[in-house]
């Protein structure tokens, strides 16, 4: 059956054609008249910053949601998948960062899930399943026992199993969403080799990534998106690689000021509040592929917004969690106002005057079933209770009202459950939660994720105001216009290390992108 897929392919023929596709969400235009083509036997890079519309396009192609406007054709026929299953049946498989294998089942069971080969009495023919699996995974260079449970494989191996499964489903287009972000360097090389091999077999690959270096080496062509529109196509044209400056130019192509105005009032930073010296974390044997901090130095002053720019997997979130006592550190020192500290838990860090607005609001910050009031006061219960532990709801309400006005939180009543608020207002409640503690250092991780454009600017304004009150604000973000607009000073991170530092006025998206996404250690052609 694999042979069929190869003979059907006509190298160079357009396989997937997207023309004039738009996607509108309640008032927001996520995709605006986007077109692209993927040919059989080629690797197309889909490039763009966060929010450029890549994910929306992937969702449309994988059948998660329909486009508002535009045509898509696949293999010469109109393509309008009603579900991910539809897309798969048509021959398009999407491999997401969050892998979709069932960890408790074996490799063979995963590959044949729902279609196990049957033998006598219509019972599962385990021997045939094992043999077929061995053949299928050999195609992606895996030589592991088909009986291995998926949970004991590395992320890279799991990815290959998913690719193998896609091939066994006679997929003709494989879409890979940030496949290299969780891989080590040698694993990346292996994956790129397999991609080349698949390409030679006539499979089309759409490679969605932030990593410019890898993309420039492997892609035959690139389609760059920016703000939901086509921002230009690039071709390799027989060169060893696509020129990186050309990619960056198309990705960022507009002044940051077009999107976010830089809040006006700036205060001269005061004394040093937080210092981090040579911070390292150890590899957790239970999570061998997690990012490890590799000697991070950092300094934040009172009244300053320090922006940390880094891609997913750069170690930015790990740094925040280590300072906050949420994860163990192996070595290094942290000092707060000149005093060495060693928080063993978030409770310790909070008591010392550090606050963290985490990356994943829903999972790490919100109590969705509880009222706005409970969500607001949870980190500062001591402020609102007497020495017997009795809460004063009156004091809670008064304080919440103060912050409601200060942050312009739009809500019906303090008793309302927080999940009824928009993302922006939820985030403001989380910010108010920390303000109630009057922290010395506030770390905000992706503060405007899932926040609509209008509220984003408000959140930015709030962060600058907090700094003006003497708080040392550390803002982690992968949205460069945001980093540029809000920060006074910017550091970039990559692979658990700080790769650059500059005042915000001297920074540009191109400079930051180069420091965040480039890897000088694997820059040469294969």
């Amino acid at each position, binding site marked *: 059956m694999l042979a069929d897929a190869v003979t059907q392919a006509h190298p160079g023929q357009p396989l997937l054609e997207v023309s004039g596709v738009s996607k509108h969400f309640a008032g927001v235009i996520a995709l605006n008249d986007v077109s692209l083509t993927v040919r059989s036997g080629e690797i197309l890079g889909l490039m763009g910053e966060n929010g450029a519309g890549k994910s929306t396009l992937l969702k449309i192609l994988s059948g998660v949601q329909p486009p508002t406007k535009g045509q898509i054709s696949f293999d010469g026929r109109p393509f309008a998948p009603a579900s991910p299953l539809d897309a798969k049946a048509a021959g398009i498989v999407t491999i997401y960062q969050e892998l979709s294998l069932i960890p408790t089942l074996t490799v063979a069971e995963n590959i044949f899930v729902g279609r196990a080969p049957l033998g006598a009495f219509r019972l599962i023919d385990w021997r045939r399943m094992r043999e077929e699996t061995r053949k299928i995974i050999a195609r992606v260079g895996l030589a592991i026992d088909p009986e291995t449970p998926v949970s004991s494989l590395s992320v890279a191996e799991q990815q290959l199993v998913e690719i193998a499964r896609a091939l066994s489903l006679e997929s003709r287009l494989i879409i890979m969403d940030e496949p290299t972000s969780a891989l080590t360097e040698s694993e990346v090389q292996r994956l790129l080799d397999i991609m080349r091999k698949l390409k030679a077999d006539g499979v089309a690959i759409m490679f969605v990534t932030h990593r410019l270096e890898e993309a420039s080496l492997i892609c035959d062509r690139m389609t760059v998106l920016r703000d939901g529109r086509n921002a230009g196509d690039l071709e390799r044209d027989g060169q060893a690689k696509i020129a990186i400056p050309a990619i960056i130019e198309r990705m960022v192509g507009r002044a940051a000021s077009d999107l976010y105005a830089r809040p006006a009032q700036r205060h001269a930073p005061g004394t040093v509040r937080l210092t981090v010296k040579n911070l390292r974390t150890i590899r957790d044997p239970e999570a061998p592929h997690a990012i490890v901090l590799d000697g991070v130095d950092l300094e934040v002053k009172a009244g300053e917004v320090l922006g940390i720019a880094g891609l997913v997997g750069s170690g930015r979130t790990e740094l925040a969690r280590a300072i906050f006592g949420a994860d163990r550190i192996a070595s290094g020192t942290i000092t707060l106002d000149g005093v060495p500290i060693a928080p063993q838990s978030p409770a310790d860090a909070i008591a010392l005057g550090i606050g963290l607005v985490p990356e994943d609001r829903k999972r790490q910050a919100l109590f969705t*079933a509880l009222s706005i009031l409970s969500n607001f006061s949870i980190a500062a219960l001591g402020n609102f209770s007497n020495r017997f532990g009795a809460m004063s709801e009156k004091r809670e309400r008064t304080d919440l009202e103060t912050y409601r006005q200060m942050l312009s939180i739009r809500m019906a009543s303090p008793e309302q459950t927080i999940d009824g608020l928009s993302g922006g207002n939820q985030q403001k409640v989380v910010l108010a939660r920390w303000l109630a503690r009057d922290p010395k250092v506030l770390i905000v991780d992706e503060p405007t994720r899932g926040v609509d454009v209008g509220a984003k600017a408000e959140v930015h304004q709030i962060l600058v105001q907090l700094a003006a009150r003497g708080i040392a604000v550390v803002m982690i973000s992968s949205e460069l216009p945001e980093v540029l607009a809000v920060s006074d000073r910017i550091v970039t991170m990559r692979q658990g290390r700080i790769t650059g530092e500059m005042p915000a006025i001297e920074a540009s998206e191109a400079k930051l992108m180069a420091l965040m996404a480039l890897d000088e250690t694997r820059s040469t052609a294969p």
Partner: protein
Amino acid sequence: MSAIASDDVKQGPNMARLIMRFGPLIFLIALIIVFALMNGKFLNPNNILNIMRQISITGLIALGMTFVILTSGIDLSVGSMLAFCGMVSAVVAKGGTANTLSLGTGAQQGYGWFAALLAAVGVGLIAGFVQGTAITRLKVPPFVVTLGGLTIFRGLTLTVSSGGPISGFTPEMRWFGTGYIDWSFGTLSAYALPVPVVIFAVAAIICHIVLRYTRYGRAVYAVGGNAEAARLSGLRVDRILVSVYVIVGFFAGLAAFVLSARLNSAEAVAGGGYELTVISAVVIGGTSLFGGVGSISGTVIGAALIGVLQNGLQFNNVSSYTQQVVIGLILILAVAFDRWLKSRARLG
């Protein structure tokens, strides 16, 4: 739904919360009306007191179980724990394992009702602490730890008692199970309430206040609602988790004492199957097994609902075999009704 994104001022959730609170109550009232129509004597004050006395033992444990379930935990060991607390308490009360109904000799050798109460409650606290610690330190799920506890405590009970009951307590001790507290307002002395009912009512009010109006209560809801967010908000999640098992242990001990006092005997088989009645009461009362949602008032209503159902069926001469079938069905129906009301509220 997405059209609402621009308008943050949504009233829906509040309405849902209101109905969520009253769903079980509506169901309870409907049930009372049905039984009253079937038999006029159902609403007789004596019968009502009888129902209240019936629910007070499992009701006490259900109060503690509410804390546990609010943290998205479960305690399956409460029935066995009750037997164990009762047996240790009886040994203290009698000064030994003498199986005698004679009030004189055994009681004189014992340490009195107060020591017996302390023993019952103390054993419950320790048992709860041990289980809570196993859950948080050994990272074994509550279901498994307390399933183990279920057989461990029953085994310990049988070991202590050699399988038989310990009977015959002092009148002072028996007062806690069989006595009345007379609330005489002027000439009206008809409102004599059974002591177990008063204990249950006082405990329910205290629990309600703790959950609703204290720091600790807020923390319990937060841990149940989102343990990771609670940790990142500075709560000592493990301590709170241990504490809820200590609380349910305390109530198992208290319930054991009251039950022994009422029956004038500590039975090795006491409390068998109580865990199911207790969990049913909490769940019918609207507390979510996923944690973070629920209330003591709901639990009291849930306990009352089960009591009314058992009593009403008995009143109408439904055989105890059929009763079990009906109670099971009503449990499912009550929760389904609650779900239905909530989904209507969300749509409205």
